[in-house]
């Protein structure tokens, strides 16, 4: 088990957790009003998107990983 595998595994597990938490918080706050809550909703959506991107990167769907011994 190399370091890259551990990093990817961590990104996948934590990415799922953060995405679920962010989208659940967004769902719970959906009905809230007021300028700050609208900003919070926008930022939670982008936070969830970021977690999904990190999750996909961890799964090697997107991004780049150098082959072993490339550096």
């Amino acid at each position, binding site marked *: 088990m190399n370091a890259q595998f551990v990093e990817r595994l961590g990104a996948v597990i934590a*990415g799922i957790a953060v995405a679920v938490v*962010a989208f659940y918080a967004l769902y719970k706050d959906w009905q809230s009003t007021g*300028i700050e809550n609208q900003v919070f909703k926008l*930022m939670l959506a982008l*936070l969830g998107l970021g977690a999904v991107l*990190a999750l996909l*990167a*961890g799964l090697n769907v997107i991004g780049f990983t150098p082959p072993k011994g490339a550096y």
Partner: protein
Amino acid sequence: MSVAAIGADAHGHVDQLYVETRELRLQGFLLFLISDCVLFSSFIFAYLYLRNSGQGWPPPGIQRLDVAFAAWNSVVLFGSGATMHYALENFKHGNFMKYMRFLLATIVLGAGFLGGQAYEYNHLIFGEHVTWWGSGIFGASFFTLTGMHGLHVFLGVCYLTVLVLQSAAGVYTKGKFFGITAGTLYWHFVDVIWVVLFSIFYLI
């Protein structure tokens, strides 16, 4: 459940000045975030312009950035956004101890992200010899943008530490907590900027 009046302190006394200026402070803070957004946008668009005007990216002699560690470090920062959100929610609902725990977790995760960034800089500079001063557009844009973001994270960690001290001293009450709201907005902003930086440097 009783709802605390906006601007009321722990004894129920309403601070009229706070009530009258809260919206103004919020608008001022949002304008500050928008100005910061413009600052990052100008650097990001400059990077994208330079990236697309050259012959291939990254420039010859420089490897593409490894996404595995960056993905892990990104999740650490995004996780801190989630803990900060729940810190504010718990404060609003009067769960002071949970609020403090989530706030401290946010600080730890933010510091962890900075440690990860320092590790990556070390790897790039000493392992792959990619430097700000000697690697052309790639090194200059990468270190400028991620360094500027790192500075924002560092300032955010300092801000949140001040929030912990103020909260422990009883500065904020259930009806008077604009500082915590501003801290949450700032921290989410820092997270969202990283979503963009992570995408343009590591994913595309």
